[in-house]
């Protein structure tokens, strides 16, 4: 991947998307091959060095412990050794970006799913890493909140953040992209632990590849607001 890329990992459950992402973040060691981050093997970096380049939002978050939003934000500043004022400022900026400023004193456990997800995005932002990896960031959210999550993420990507994203909703992704974005977004289809294909979002044969990937019929309709994807049972 190059700086500024957006790579979207797609594929059925169990295809290996999350395992690939875990290896890319250095959380698990790959059996074969290696992951290079700016030229260095990811396992050779100190944890804080790695976190300076790469922020990760895993699929699951533990919320068994009562934790205030501002304290949860502080944990994402672990790699910094900044003063209280610097930390405060960075946290305020990130919460403002996510539209969550007035939630800073709240307990994370009292937030709705959508609010909590915005806090997790703000945690990624406050870590100030140029590369983000997100595992199904819009899962379990209502349709409007899903779109808000994608809008926040894509704004960030357009501003220069490199991203790897796992999703089960390529239709939502395509609907969130503006036409000029399309050639710069790459979709990777994964099947049975292997990367089956990588295509730009405006590839003419994208529909047939997606249909094949999910074993459904896929249509891409060209509309004035951009391409729209439909998946349905084969007739």
């Amino acid at each position, binding site marked *: 991947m190059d700086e500024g890329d957006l790579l979207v990992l797609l594929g059925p459950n169990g295809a290996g998307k999350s395992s690939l992402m875990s290896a890319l*973040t250095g959380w698990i060691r790959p059996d074969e091959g290696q992951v290079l981050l700016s030229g260095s093997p990811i396992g050779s970096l100190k944890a*804080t060095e790695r976190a300076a380049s*790469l922020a*990760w939002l895993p699929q*699951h978050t533990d*919320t068994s412990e*009562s934790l205030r939003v501002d304290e949860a934000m502080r*944990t994402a500043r672990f*790699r910094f050794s900044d003063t209280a004022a610097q930390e405060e400022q960075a946290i305020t900026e990130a919460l403002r970006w996510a539209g969550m400023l007035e939630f800073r004193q709240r307990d994370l456990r009292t937030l709705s799913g959508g609010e909590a997800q915005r806090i997790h995005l703000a945690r990624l932002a406050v*870590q100030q890493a140029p590369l983000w990896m997100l595992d199904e960031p819009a899962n379990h959210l209502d349709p409007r909140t899903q779109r808000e999550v994608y809008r926040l993420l894509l704004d960030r990507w357009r501003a220069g953040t490199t991203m790897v994203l796992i999703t089960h909703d390529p239709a939502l992704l395509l609907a969130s992209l503006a036409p000029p974005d399309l050639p710069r977004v790459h979709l990777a289809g994964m099947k049975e632990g292997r990367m089956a294909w990588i295509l730009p979002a405006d590839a003419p044969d994208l529909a047939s590849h997606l249909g094949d990937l999910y074993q459904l019929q896929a249509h891409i309709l060209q509309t004035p607001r951009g391409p729209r994807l439909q998946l349905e049972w084969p007739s």
Partner: protein
Amino acid sequence: MTRVALLTLGTFLLLAASPWIGLTDHPDAAPFIVWQLRVPRLLMALLVGLVLGTTGAVFQALFRNPLATPSTTGTTAGATLGALAVLVLAPGLAHPLALAGGAFSGAIVLSLGVTALAMAHGRSIHDILLAGVALTLGAGALTMGLQATADMSATFRAVQWSLGSLSTVGYRDVLWFTLPALLVWLLMIRRSRALDALLLGEAQAHGVGVDPVKLRTELLWVGSLGVACAVAITGPIAFVGLVVPHLVRRLAPGRRKGFIAWSGLSAGAFLALADLLARHVLPGRELPVGVMTAAIGAPFLVALVLRKTP
């Protein structure tokens, strides 16, 4: 954390005056009672409480389990077995140091067996918890087996020892224990930021730059060593490390800044207060301090859990 701090510091003030309670009957013996008996005992209670409270707070966060205690790594069960083994197998060794040595060896063998697991990558923290519980039960069975075959006096002494007591400590114990206790406390405070990152899960902690395997290995070794030292001197004192971190959490919900530090300090105050009550609640008799910590701590915790959090 302000409420916790005020409560703890208030208790410290009360405790500072406590060695002079009820001395008017024996004016001649007063200096000896105060300086040779009560002050070292108070200091020891503060230090042991410091280690138990700090370790309890850290282990609960590390295992992400509210039932984790300083004994979760098998420390207490190992110590009890070690002490009993000395009493039963070498009854001639009446020296208190032999008992402490047996307890310490048992605590170290068991807890290091459990914590060694923590170094393996890909080993879940719940495996370590499970190993701790299994070894604790195993050591408990061996302890009961030893008791069944031992004579009455050895069994009686072992049961007494296992209730935990601060009544026999002197300045030598305090001197010996001060350095490890403060080291445990300071090291765990230093790691509190990394530990906070762990609250959202090990993968999340990895993402923000914490090495969870290194962190848990270090904290489990340090905590187990500290608790092993404490148990060797005073016997196992239950409940402090379980209850006090929960009390602190309830008084300052959602706050992590200062949580580890104040859990340790308030556990020191709690244990010293419990020891004070254990000595004075029955006229002319002393209760084991472990009975007192449970008697105060259990209802207090139940009340706090039942009260709706704001």
